[in-house]
């Protein structure tokens, strides 16, 4: 499903409440604009609606409403944002999921808070590794986001630097893009052979088909571990020097990363231990609560 083909002018015509509409990005299945609503900055996201191909493996929501996978995912993303209130997860804006036809395309759109800041991927490219204090803050904030998701039995499944932003105003990190959120209470939206998420940031259990239905928040902790490792050393432990997808998967399943302090000597032992523990291949060897991880990070 491609992203919708629409312009800032098309968006501005939807409602006079939408001011200063500017194109931001087009990727995956969404086209995204920034805008102001009643003077407050927001982003507005559009996605194409497709007819549901009725068939097996559809969730209860999909079956009930005849929704496509894309629409179902958007509904899940929005319901997740509606149920959670933490500064470490992006918030829904004033416009909930709304259908519209633009240029003959059947679309859905909704708004989110606009975060004034930079995404971690850009930050790491521009500045290199984070300071120890920034790494602690990053770990605590994203662990808080994971904890909030788990309280409603949801897993993000796509934690990576591109989905994390550093807020300019507060200096805190925020987790974006709940588009791949996994709901333990519903049937999988993902067709069987596909692995959701981003290569190099998957947990081992995300890559093993038999384990995918029994994922829990510790899968997100593993992805956070990759992000913390990368933010500490500027190296992704599983994609580094890989020639192809198979090597990355093999590394994720089998490679035990070096201690980060061997790459950057100022990393304290306690941070080494935390990073390596949440990168354990077995979920039961990670932390069994986000608060435990946060306490360990704070004590560094």
């Amino acid at each position: 499903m491609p992203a919708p083909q629409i312009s800032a002018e098309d968006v501005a015509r939807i409602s006079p409440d939408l001011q200063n509409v500017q194109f931001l990005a087009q990727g995956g299945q969404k086209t995204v604009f920034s805008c102001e609503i009643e003077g407050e900055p927001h982003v507005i996201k559009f996605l194409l609606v497709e007819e549901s191909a009725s068939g097996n493996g559809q969730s209860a929501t999909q079956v009930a409403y005849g929704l496509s996978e894309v629409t179902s995912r958007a509904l899940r993303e929005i319901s997740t944002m509606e149920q959670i209130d933490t500064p470490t997860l992006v918030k829904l804006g004033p416009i909930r999921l709304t259908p519209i036809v633009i240029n003959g395309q059947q679309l859905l759109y909704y708004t989110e808070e606009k975060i004034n800041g930079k995404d971690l991927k850009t930050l790491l490219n521009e500045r290199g590794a984070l300071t120890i204090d920034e790494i602690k803050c990053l770990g605590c904030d994203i662990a808080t986001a994971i904890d909030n998701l788990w309280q409603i039995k949801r897993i993000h499944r796509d934690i990576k630097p591109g989905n994390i932003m550093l807020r300019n105003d507060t200096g805190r990190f925020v987790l974006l893009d709940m588009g791949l959120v996994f709901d333990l209470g519903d049937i999988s939206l993902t067709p069987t052979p596909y692995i959701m998420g981003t290569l190099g940031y998957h947990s081992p259990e995300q890559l093993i088909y038999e384990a995918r239905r029994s994922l829990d928040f510790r899968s997100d902790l593993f992805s956070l571990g990759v992000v913390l490792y990368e933010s500490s050393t500027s190296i992704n432990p599983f994609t580094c020097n890989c020639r192809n997808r198979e090597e990355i998967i093999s590394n994720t399943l089998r490679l035990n990363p070096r201690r980060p302090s061997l790459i950057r000597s100022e990393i304290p032992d306690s941070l080494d231990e935390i990073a390596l523990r949440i990168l354990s291949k077995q979920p039961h060897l990670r932390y069994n609560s986000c608060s435990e991880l946060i306490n360990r990070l704070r004590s560094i």
Partner: protein
Amino acid sequence: MTVYAQAGWGKSDKIIRGMSDGSIDGVIWSPKDEFPHSMHVDTHGYKTRFPNSIMLFDPQFYTTVLAGTKDHRLQHYPYWRTLTRSYFNDSANLRTSVQETLDYQLTLNIDRLLSPSIEIDSFGSADCNISLSLANESIRYHQELSSTNLALPPLLISLIISEACLSSPSNFNSFLDDISIMPSAGFYLIVHRDDSQYQARFDPNALENLLYLVYVLAEINSYEVICGYSDFVGTLLCTVGAKAIGTGWFSNLRQFTMGRFLPSTPKRQARPRYSSQLLMNSILLDEMDIIHRRGQLNSIMSGTTYDAVFNTVANPSNAPWAMDESTLHHWLVLQVLITSVTGGTVQNNLNICMGMISNAQTIYNNLSRMMSFNVYTGDHHLQQWETAISNFRNRVNI
């Protein structure tokens, strides 16, 4: 808090004496061996007398599905009845079992609630799923109770796992993933041993996996882990994080077999034994006689206050070594052993434990040049323990 009396029939005043001399810190009560009225009186009375002790009540729910069980006093408990596994297919029945078992425990003066459970014969099996369902329902009911009862004792999830299951555990990691995020205070673990004859020997594979299980729950995931029926091997379990072990006076209270709950034929009285801290095992008084004659008795003596009786006789087997003294001495030996191998990091604890095993092996080797031990009192367990610890250390890289 390291050694709890694994209570059974014939407790006399052993528990009171053990509590008084500090050789035990708690009791795991057994409904099989007490009528409900006595249980009520004992749990309240002992707790009043020893307020700092830890009292647990093992509901022995696993016997409800045991065919041909010798139910003894169990049938007088309100939560206990003979059940079939199909009973648990109905979630309402499951809920009833949990509520009755936990509600009964709330009438006692105990410090932890133990969930009902059935034996896990293999991870991922139907019985394993029933066990996990009972655990999850217990957690749910405990949470419900905690909203109205602020003094509610913490909940420990009971797990009864067969030794065979630990020897070759398929689906072990998945099982660990499931239990390691259970919102309970901890776990009460029992290993159902294959051999009904008491022995310190333990299949190295099973022991390695048991060490890993305790380590994952206690050390990595910060649960309180209490290992019932553990005896000498419990020393090893404490090095990797177990908070306490249970052990009793009879051999069937020192290692767990279902035979304890089945009709039995009369057995001859057990030959008196002496628990040697240095050998990490119990040996027969007859064997002590030989060691004494060879002038090596000091190499195996534990140094407890109870040892004094052996100084006054020509042969150790002539010493007034009654069951009660033997038990109190045994608890004290375990208390000292466990204290020696705990308190540091797991790595340090294991180093100390390996040193003690090595020392025990040296003593055994020395004695073996002059005599032979029987199959249960010899040194076979030491090599198995060493192998299990080494493999465990490689596995978790410590």
